[in-house]
């Protein structure tokens, strides 16, 4: 195969189209398209990584340097020895805890609404639960702030995990409902015929069957919890402060430490990148709230 044919094959999946002007245009078109997409998507990320390895003065030079002239990992060290490590740890604890809590509460509810919605408020209630996700966070934050301060539960891990349930539980319920609906009830009925109780059937039959869906939902819930900003801004001080809160604090003010903020951002993005690489197809369904099967 010639290079041209090979390239065309790689990009467009065809081998048998004769070499023609049209084919060439097609190849060029697709190549440019892919390149533009690559650049547009990745340039901001690349710039952040670039900035995160520069010493502070170099972040403010004009013209800006596209690769660090003085490569240094001191921004990372500074962040980690400063506030960075504690906020990252807090983020991990809060996001994992919130995810576990949301799944434990939400998965069974999703099952209930998939199998027998009438018993628990019907389909309308299910839709209504979903609509909770559409509230601007400030709406519940205001009264929740009032409530939580009355009981002195500000700036603690349990507080944040509880609060994140407000938008995670609707998501879990809705997604798991969609996944459970995919399993024919016949499977469960067969198990019941065999003498299992419905509870046993749920754990031993239904749950294993939706495990891919469970994985997807868990990851999505974790991502949203990891990225959450508004609740953390209001409800944390230092004990449970997650990384999104200190990012704007480091920017503006007296002198922005762009390299450190960039380093913190890069570190926060790493789990996201890993998950995205592993899970792309799965995530579509979750992101579209089950409307698109992906």
């Amino acid at each position, binding site marked *: 195969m010639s290079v041209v044919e090979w390239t065309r094959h790689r*990009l*467009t999946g065809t081998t048998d189209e004769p070499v023609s002007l049209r084919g060439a245009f097609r190849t060029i078109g697709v190549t440019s*398209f*892919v390149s533009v997409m*690559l650049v547009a*998507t990745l340039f*901001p990320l690349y710039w*952040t990584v670039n900035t995160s390895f520069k010493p502070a003065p170099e972040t403010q030079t004009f*013209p*800006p340097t*596209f690769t660090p002239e003085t490569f240094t990992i001191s921004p990372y060290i500074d962040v980690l020895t400063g506030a960075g490590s504690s906020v990252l740890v807090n983020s991990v604890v809060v996001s994992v805890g919130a995810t576990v809590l949301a799944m434990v*509460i939400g998965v*069974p509810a999703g*099952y209930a*609404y998939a199998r027998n919605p009438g*018993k*628990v408020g019907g389909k309308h209630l299910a839709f209504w*639960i*979903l*609509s909770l996700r*559409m*509230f*601007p*966070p*400030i*709406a*519940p*934050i*205001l*009264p*929740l702030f009032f*409530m939580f301060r009355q009981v002195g539960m500000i700036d603690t891990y349990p507080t944040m995990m509880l*609060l994140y*349930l407000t938008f995670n*539980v*609707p998501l879990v*319920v809705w997604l798991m409902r969609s996944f459970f609906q995919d399993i024919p009830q016949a499977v469960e009925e067969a198990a*019941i015929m065999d*003498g299992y*109780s*419905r509870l046993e059937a749920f754990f031993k039959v239904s749950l294993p069957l939706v495990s891919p869906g469970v994985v997807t939902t868990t990851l999505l819930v974790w*991502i949203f919890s990891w*990225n959450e*900003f508004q609740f953390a801004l209001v409800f944390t001080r230092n004990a449970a402060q997650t990384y*999104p809160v200190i990012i*704007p604090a480091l920017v503006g003010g007296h002198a922005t430490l762009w390299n450190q*903020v*960039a380093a913190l*951002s890069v570190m*926060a*993005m790493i789990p996201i990148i890993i998950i*995205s*690489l592993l899970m792309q197809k799965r*995530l*579509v369904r979750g*992101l579209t*709230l089950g*409307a*698109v099967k*992906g």
Partner: protein
Amino acid sequence: MASSTDDTQTHRSTGFSSYVRNEHLEYWFAIPALLILLALVIFPMVWSLWTSFTDLNLTIATSNGAFVGLENYETLLTSDRFWTSIRNTAYYVGLGVTIEFTLGFAIALFMANYTRGRVTTVLFTLLLLPMMMAPIVAGLIWRLLFQESFGPINYLLASLGVGQPAWLSSTAMSLNSVLIADVWQWTPFMILILYTGRLSISEDLYEAARIDGADRWFTFRHVTLPQMKGVVAIAILLRAMDAFKFFDKMFVMTGGGPGTSSELGTYYNYLLGFDSFSMGEATAMSWLLLLFAVVLANVFLSVLERGEGGDRVV
């Protein structure tokens, strides 16, 4: 398909555990979630509604929140700043979703027609990254890019001999700059949904159109679009609802400035609550915002429900 009956039970006898496990399983399964939502969302929202009729202000130690009727709503609805923030929000949601949709659709169709296999996979993976990162981080990144004195964008524009806009420091551009960051982050969302939706259209339809000698534009209008109506609706509505909650990027990129040029409803609401601590006004505004969100949500839900009544949408 009835749920369990007692006849087929061989292992379990009657009693509470059987009750839980069988008859009212759904009930017990759903109650924790409902209770949580009741406690964390419903109660608070009712309290917030009540507070919106008071003049509660946390910076005044003696403030008990006396009843003032619709005064807060009145103040807001006649306030310039409120309407500026709503206007900005409408501009941002409207223009943002439109751009993201148009761009996303074009790219999705292009990908569906011209890319295959590994390339598609690679692109998908790439496209996920902006969406998955924290909006506050995305905002930070774009603030870095938009830096006027030492940012790469203005530098590149300068070397091309083109004018360099004052991205974040001019009242005209500030909202647009935030919009650009949002387009970068969420167009991939549109692409993914629309691409998947496009792919699920049966090839037979396109075959038939081709045999009939239809050109591209015709095919698009009479095959692609109608088939994708549902997906398009979902995509736009989902995105609009999320856009409405916008806060993080604006917070870190412009702080609502310069002046109030990029101040959105959610941010002004936040300031009312946590800078002025005027809880009465803040809760009133959040209810006004909720009205908008509820309207949007209802449209979305009815589309979804229509889809669920028969088959799923896609």
